[in-house]
């Protein structure tokens, strides 16, 4: 027995509308909420009884069973419809409904499998590729079939040698799928950064990959597509990485196919629990994750990780914030500053940050526009130290001016990286 909390909003668009009622018995795989406009179907991840329905979620008292069986989705004529029935959304974090992407027709275009797993510490995607590369390759083939795209790319960091080896074996006989190896730099896995790497073309932040005749899909999303097409399985399980200040040690723990709605706290318990005092539980990766609430956080279709961090270092003085589209937004930085007990005296945006449809976007992810003005502005407004949220390249730029201006620099990922002894984000080495 256990309580599973299934959020009604796990994707872009309005929350789904429940089609079950309180007290009703549901089965694993059964559709329990329908999209309201743009969105994706939501299915029960466990069999059990619906105990509570609120505006935000459906709570299911699950029966404890080893049985991983599920109710299959109905047979569909098209791959896009299958994706819709299975409730597939972008598993990399954005949660864009996959069936919409699959309805594009690009007979002279490309489908790109995003296997970059850009965020450090998270590594369940690469682990899956190592384990079952065929699943992703077949998912890519289904996506190519749906969009009529003749060519497929798999974008992956060249440091993931083992995963690349297994992929290469898998595509040996496939002439139309290529591997694109990328450097280990944040945020090379951003959609437009990948397109830039492959086609040497910068899309503007308003433009969608379609403008480059491409559809970009996360590797795990493609795996879900393969499962939907082959096994008629809806999205009810999620791969997730749990790491940080855990009794089991500093290494990342990978959980494959955890039922959606499982509490993050129970996963942490499975890793031995939190080791002593902690700072925050970051849901997502170090760069774009947000502090979650240990009592309420659950696994969703888009959650990539849960990282328990060490307490944040205190700094009682005036602090300036440098917001970046690729890292933390202003609220996230303010929340970190609050935990540092710092007084925020100034906030400024990286000059490449533009707001598109309510979200922060970077003009050229991974290519720095220069940061000295921003740092000087923060200093002028009274900041004695700064907390930055920049990507690797921009952080490098900040580091080549702020210390010269006698401004010490915190990076918003410091406490996370320090927890697991990961290298801090600062100056880039000149050799690479």
């Amino acid at each position, binding site marked *: 027995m256990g309580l599973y909390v299934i959020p009604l909003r796990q994707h872009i668009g309005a929350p789904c509308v429940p089609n079950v009622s309180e007290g009703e018995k549901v089965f694993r795989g059964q559709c329990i909420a329908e999209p309201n406009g743009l969105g994706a179907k939501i299915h029960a991840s466990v069999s059990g009884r619906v105990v509570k329905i609120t505006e935000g979620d459906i709570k299911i008292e699950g029966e404890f069973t080893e049985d991983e069986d599920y109710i299959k989705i109905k047979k569909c004529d098209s791959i896009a419809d299958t994706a819709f029935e299975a409730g597939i959304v972008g598993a990399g974090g954005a949660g864009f409904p996959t069936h919409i992407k699959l309805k594009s027709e690009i007979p002279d275009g490309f489908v790109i499998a995003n296997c970059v797993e850009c965020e450090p510490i998270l590594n369940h995607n690469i682990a899956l590729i190592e384990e079952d590369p065929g699943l992703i390759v077949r998912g890519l083939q289904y996506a190519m079939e749906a969009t009529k795209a003749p060519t497929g790319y798999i974008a992956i960091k060249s440091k993931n040698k083992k995963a690349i080896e297994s992929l290469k074996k898998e595509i040996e006989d496939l002439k139309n799928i290529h591997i694109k190896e990328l450097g280990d730099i944040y945020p090379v896995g951003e959609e437009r950064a990948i397109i830039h790497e492959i086609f040497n073309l910068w899309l503007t932040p308003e433009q969608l990959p379609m403008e480059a005749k491409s559809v970009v899909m996360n590797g795990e999303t493609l795996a879900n597509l393969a499962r939907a097409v082959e096994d008629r399985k809806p999205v009810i399980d999620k791969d997730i990485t749990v790491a940080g200040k855990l009794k089991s040690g500093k290494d990342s723990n990978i959980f494959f196919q955890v039922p959606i709605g499982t509490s993050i706290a129970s996963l942490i318990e499975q890793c031995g629990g939190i080791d002593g005092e902690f700072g925050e539980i970051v849901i997502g990766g170090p760069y774009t994750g947000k502090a979650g609430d240990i009592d309420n956080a659950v696994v969703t279709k888009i959650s990539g990780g849960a990282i328990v961090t060490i307490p944040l270092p*205190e700094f009682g003085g005036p602090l300036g914030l440098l917001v970046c589209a690729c890292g933390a937004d202003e609220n996230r930085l303010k929340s970190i500053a609050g935990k540092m007990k710092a007084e925020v005296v100034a906030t400024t945006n990286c000059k490449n940050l533009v707001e598109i449809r309510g979200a922060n976007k970077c003009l050229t992810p991974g290519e720095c526009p220069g940061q000295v003005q921003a740092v000087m502005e923060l200093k002028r407004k009274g900041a004695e*130290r700064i907390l930055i949220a920049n990507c690797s390249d921009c952080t490098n730029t900040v*580091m080549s001016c*702020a210390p010269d201006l006698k401004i010490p620099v915190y*990076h918003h990922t410091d406490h996370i990286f*320090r927890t697991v*002894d990961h290298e801090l984000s600062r100056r880039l080495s000149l050799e690479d």
Partner: protein
Amino acid sequence: MSLTIEQVEKFKKEVAVLCCRLKEGSIIDESHLEDPTILPELVDSGLLTIPKNCARIGQVIGAKLLKTLDALTPISSDVVEGIKEMDLSNEGITEDEIFDLDQKAVLKYNMKFGDVIKASDLENPMNFEKMEDSLLIKLSEKVLTRGEVIGKKLNKDTVALTPILPEMIEGYKATEKLETTPMDTNNGSILKIKIAEGKGIDIEIPMGGYIGHASTIINKEKMAEKPVEIPPKEIRRLTKKYFEIHNVIFGKETKIEGKTLYIRENIGEDALKVDKLVKEIKVDIIGPDRYKEYSETIMDVQPIATKEEGDKLGTGTTRVLDGVIMIVTGTDENGVQIGEFGSSEGILEENVMWGRPGAPDKGEILIKTEVVIKEHTNMERPGPLAAHKATDFITSEIREALKKLDEKLVSREEEFIQLRRPGKKKIVIVKEIMGQGAMHDNLILPIEPVGVIGGKPNVDLGNLPIVLSPLEILDGSIHALTCIGPASKECSRHYFREPLIIEALKDEEIDLCGVILVGSPQINSEKFYVSERVGMTVEAMDVDGAVVTTEGFGNNHIDFASHIEQIGMRDISVVGASFCAVQGALVVGNKYMTNMIDLNKTEEGIENEVLACNTLTGEDGLRILAMLKAIMNGEEVLAPERKWNPEVKENNLRLIGKN
């Protein structure tokens, strides 16, 4: 001393050390093991070394000893058979990964006073390069290594990413030398040499010589004369020797053994006899684990200190207990708190601004008396005094035990040297203390630090100004009965650690000649009577500048203002320091009150009933001295804004930081 079964459970993760000789083949039980609480002391004194593979108490009970071992031998895992498995991770003693012992020690976590540093509390050296590059840390020569700090105790709250310096570690022997080195005193003077064009120019500048700082223009004629530097003259010195206490428990008699203070169980019965107004007295020992409990209003916080044979207050040697203090609390028989303007009763932890000079420090053990005095005497002079006398009876007994302690047990020393600095601006500190009667009184110059016997109540002395040496103040010459608002009152311990005096003693640019104490009488005519005497005293001292401080606010601001007027009208630079902000806004003023320092620490600017919150701190001391030095040098202090604005303080601190 052997353990009991209960202790075995409690100490199961502590190291196992034999308390007496045990023969080969014996089965180890609780009676064979030494009490682990005494081990750190043995380790410190070099009598014992704990090997890395030392087994834990919980592991060895029931195990067989493979060879005969002597008393006080740690049981390593290779000399026993049948050792139990034990999970040592993550609680109690952790199997710290000891590595990189030669690397510098930087804190990974925000840590508190008294915390013992473990290897896991230290930042991974892999991050040092980037952190130094980011200016987040600075690894100077002085920073200790990991090997040097592991197992050591912090002597103050320290935030994460702080490199550990020797002075942050408890027991670090440092004598605080307040002497001046004449070489560095030419602050403010500018030597500019500009040579547009020239050949064969020889410039000779006397190095280490003193260039007068009062004027920045150096005449050629004067250069010819040898600059006269009169070296500072030592007047007297005071040494505080600290004895660490880790445990306070009740026992058969009052005594100190090692780091344990025993208090006679029935001491309260005798303390009760001290004064017939005392109806009941409860003595309680409150360790950090009990900070969350309720307490009656705190009347006073007192150090436990005593003079060594033949020494008078303010000179010679004072012995002080470290880690334990006295707290006086009380009510009358009807349960009315002995306090006038507000009181601090409630959960201890929340009602104390820990770490203020006059407040307890986090981690200290509090010996708290809860004195019940005769009904309705809480607002008359004898009532509160009786509560203090009863408490001091207990303190006196501890003082006797402290006198007997072996000199070898001194854990740290503090040295205060009173220097006169001829040629520097001469200043005096005027401290207004409460003298309205009832609990608003102070015993001046008792025989023992913060004692009762020998002290004269300033009310009885007519509240007239009295000159004390700065060292007398720092040696507990004021036993404060004062019970004005908890947030702004200066408890006895405040004077014992008076930060303005400490800063002024250190300041090489000024010549601190003494401290004037003046009481604040109830009646207005008396207020002006005493403030005129302050004026005459300061005039006779021929000083360049004076600081007037006060505690509380309201009524006493009348004489506070008058003292400033009396000093100001004699053309002496004067700075006033008081809690004012919003709630304590000055009720009177005069044209000499232009240089004021607000001691408020609350966000809203109020008397918040948190003990010592709004009292003078070291930072305030720096602001006061910076302002006084500025006006003595003819600078002007800007008028304040019409409404209280906390920014003013921040800006001033920034200005001081720049200089």
